[in-house]
């Protein structure tokens, strides 16, 4: 509102002159003015005289109130101040012959109007409304006196503009809403049509697929010609996008459920029907969701021959594409190591880690994966993922390597490493745990305290006892006391009896730790 105020003020001042001049309401049209003056009878200082051409106007000449004098080309009346003398003579007839005077001096019509306006604005006179009403019928009177409201045309421009804007908005609004509605209806109708078509095609592909899978062996399928396939899957239908998609979905669905030779048969079919090329074509497009579809298809159908194309997408800027490409690489590549993952520049999200972990867990049972490669990555999130893999896959053989790297790692990595040491019971890393207990980073400290519970020794206990006396944060104090309890129960009790009276928290902490129902809380 404060910002709008200057704009409002500008608007206000620009309108002032216009509005104040409209308060007088003195008609500028001469016949209307004469009519008004006739009703007014007299206005101080304002007079008039008439000029007539030959021959004399009979009505005016008959009016005895005027004193006519001859001049060059006609007659001139004397100056009069009483406008009722004009009698019932038509104002239009009079207006061209009437000339105004102010203090007996002839003046222009506009000067006379201005003079009357000034008298009105000063309050010297009041212009009355017609008391007796028009003498003629209302229609002809209205025709002579066009409607002029008191506040008429006050803001004529703005009033027009407002209605113009509203009309404009309504029109834009209509166009916009109608087009949005049309788009939505088209989308819905297309969707319904596609669903119906998919249903129809789905029924069409089930029988040929079943026949091929259960009635022909793998060699027979391999030897089939294009003409043979044509009888199962007509070529014109294979060119239909929806049909192709339905067929792809069906084959992938079956591939997920089947094993052994059936899988091979499905893959052969997928290749022979040109669907593999369709999948590869998809990953070359720019729309991410289509690329992702292609990647899923390549992954599901084990199309390892297209791995070079997939590898190009492992560092894509799109999260979904990148994730699916790495998943496909992990699944399909029997020879490739984890270098494509090591070289990723984008941070690895927890979601991606979870997906990759599932695949790596499965693949690592079949072949050796060089997880240690991930420790060399320039990407911190990849390195951390590497430490997690060591922990989850139980790779104790890599602990030595981690141990040599540990002192130079960032705090976040150290915390992850501590979790790994704790999980794998790496008691030889007690020095590292002790060094982390001195950290100022609360997350690292907390992790070290948890690790100390299992991996700590006498020296760790001393550090923890020193720390708990200084610790103010309740949760950390609880964790430290829990670790002390695990390391040496008698020292724990001794500490409580020594400091329990001065620190009431300690007694509560003791009860908490000793309550078996709260072992994990």
């Amino acid at each position, binding site marked *: 509102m404060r910002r709008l105020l200057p704009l409002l003020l500008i608007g206000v001042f620009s*309108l002032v002159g216009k509005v104040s001049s409209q308060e007088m309401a003195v008609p500028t049209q001469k016949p209307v003015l004469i009519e008004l003056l006739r009703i007014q009878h007299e206005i101080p200082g304002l007079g008039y005289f008439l000029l007539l051409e030959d021959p004399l106007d009979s009505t005016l000449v008959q009016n005895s109130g005027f004193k006519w004098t001859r001049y060059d080309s006609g007659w001139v009346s004397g100056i009069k101040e009483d406008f009722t003398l004009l009698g019932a003579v038509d104002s239009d007839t009079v207006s061209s012959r009437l000339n105004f005077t102010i203090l007996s001096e002839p003046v222009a019509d506009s000067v006379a109007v201005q003079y009357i306006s000034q008298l009105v604005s000063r309050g010297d006179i009041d212009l009355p409304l017609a008391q007796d009403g028009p003498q003629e019928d209302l229609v002809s009177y209205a025709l002579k006196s066009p409607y002029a409201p008191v*506040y008429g045309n006050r803001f004529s421009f703005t009033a027009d503009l407002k*209605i113009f804007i509203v009309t404009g908005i309504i029109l834009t*609004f209509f166009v916009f809403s109608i087009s949005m509605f049309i788009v939505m209806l088209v989308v819905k109708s297309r969707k319904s049509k596609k669903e119906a078509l998919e249903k129809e095609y789905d029924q069409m592909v089930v029988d040929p697929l079943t026949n091929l899978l259960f009635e022909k062996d793998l060699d027979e399928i391999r030897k089939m010609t294009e003409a043979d396939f044509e009888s199962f899957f007509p070529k014109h239908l294979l060119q239909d996008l929806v049909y192709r998609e339905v067929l792809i979905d069906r084959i992938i669905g079956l591939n997920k459920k089947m094993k052994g030779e059936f899988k091979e048969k499905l893959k052969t079919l997928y290749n022979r029907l040109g669907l593999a090329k369709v999948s590869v074509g998809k990953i070359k497009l720019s729309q991410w*969701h289509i690329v992702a579809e292609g990647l899923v298809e390549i992954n599901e159908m084990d199309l390892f021959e297209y791995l070079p194309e997939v590898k190009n997408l492992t560092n894509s800027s799109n999260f979904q594409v990148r994730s699916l490409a790495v998943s496909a690489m992990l699944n399909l590549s029997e020879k490739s190591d984890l270098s494509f993952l090591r070289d990723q520049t984008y941070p690895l999200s*927890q979601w991606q*880690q979870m997906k990759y972990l599932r695949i790596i867990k499965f693949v690592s049972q079949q072949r050796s994966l060089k997880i240690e490669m991930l420790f060399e990555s320039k990407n911190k999130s990849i390195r951390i993922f590497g430490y997690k893999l060591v922990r989850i896959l139980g790779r104790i053989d890599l602990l030595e390597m981690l141990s040599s790297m540990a002192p130079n790692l960032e705090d976040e990595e150290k915390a992850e490493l501590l979790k790994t040491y704790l999980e794998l019971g790496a008691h030889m890393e007690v020095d590292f745990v002790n060094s982390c207990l001195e950290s100022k980073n609360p997350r690292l400290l907390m992790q070290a305290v948890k690790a100390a519970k299992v991996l700590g020794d006498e020296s760790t206990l001393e550090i923890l006892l020193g720390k708990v006396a200084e610790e103010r944060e309740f949760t950390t104090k609880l964790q430290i006391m829990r670790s002390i309890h695990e390391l040496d129960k008698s020292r724990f009790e001794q500490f409580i009896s020594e400091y329990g009276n001065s620190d009431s928290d300690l007694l509560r902490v003791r*009860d908490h730790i000793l309550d078996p*129902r709260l072992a994990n809380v």
Partner: protein
Amino acid sequence: MYSFLFFLILEVVGWIFLALSFGVILVYMTMMILSSLELRDYLRKNQFTDYGDIITSPIAPGVSMLAPAFNEGQTIVQNVKSLLSLHYGKFEVVIINDGSKDDTLEKLIESFELEKTSFAYNSDIETKPVRGVYKSRNMSYRRLVVIDKENGGKADALNTGINVASMELLACIDVDCILSSDSISRMVRPFMEETNRKVIAVGGVIGIANNCDVQDGTVTRYRVPESILGKFQVVEYFRAFLMGRMAWSRINALMLISGAFGFFRADIVRKVGGYFPKTVGEDMELVVRMRRYMHEQGIPFKIGFVPDLLCWTEVPESEEILSRQRNRWMRGTIETLQLHKQINLNPKFGAVGMLTFPYWTVLEKNGPILEVLGLVYTLVLLLVGDFSALYFFALLVMMYLLSLLVSSFSVLYEQLAFNYYKDKKDLKKLIWTILSEPFVIHPKVVWWGIKGHWDFVKGKGGWGSMIRQGFKSAEEKKALETESNTQ
């Protein structure tokens, strides 16, 4: 001169109303576009998402489900059983008995074989005293923690739960909500997906359970409620969730996560001092304070939104209860906007400062007042004879059409994306509701909003002077508590 000023004011006010009308249209049109883009992207992403791994993955974060209960004796056991049966690997259910006067605690103790533990409760966030923390001796209920405390209201109960919760993520829910079995997996996904920014909270859609069939804690058949108020709320919830929140989520400017179903990162909630119990709009206030904290600390962050219908609740169908709810919502909105007024039109707070906050201030908070002023303005125009019927009806038609358009689109979004209400009769009912809402329900909603304003002015609820003064920083709430503790 006075008449000039009067007419000038009329003219200026007319222009302001015109600008407002234009602004409303522009805002809603933009929201429609943004929400449709967001919904499209969400549906596309969902095509490639498999939620199977998350249930057992060691990488998935743990979730503490916090559910305050006050006099819920009749339904508490069934509700807790339903919560314990959710499909997720690492989670705990924390029920906070907020000083119930009925047998809520007794029923819990009896049904879940609970025993009072020696839990060392620590008020990191200040709360009313805790009388006891209970755990079950039966391993089947190992995930359940019950806290018994003195009554202090919903925010206070949630703060108690936050103090006890042990997982990375907090899910704050209403105990009587019906949750879909995969609700945790779906809500956790945005927290796990983001790479460059920290996801601090994720909001979900609330569905209306009135008149629906519920079996084994899941809605099995959707039906539109019978009452006009119930139907109106179906349309309103679609508008709010599928359009409003999706649109704000698109530009990472979401300012409200429903108190009935919201997920938060526990460390950030603790850093800002938890819920503010002195406001009736504690859900919105927490989200705004968390946003503010992240901005003030300069940490890149995001608030996510999941448009899948994962949570259902019964909405009030009586006018009296609904009016009280709307009154409370309005006061909550005013209080939050007042507490964080420093955000308004402040570019430091990004899209929230420049878009969402002004939107809430002008349209959500002041909307009812502006509508009444518009009515008064029309009456004044009629009295002074400056009323233009053409102009008035043009504006009226314009706003009515806008209302129809926005509501229809919300329902259409739902039909295209999720299609929960499959019966054509239900669709017809919703269309009639959309057509009649501006005349039948909207005036009442405006009136309830005005009453909310009036109650706020009178100082009903809330923490009067503090709220008017506002927080100078997101962490100021913690300082306030420390002061009150030491006094």
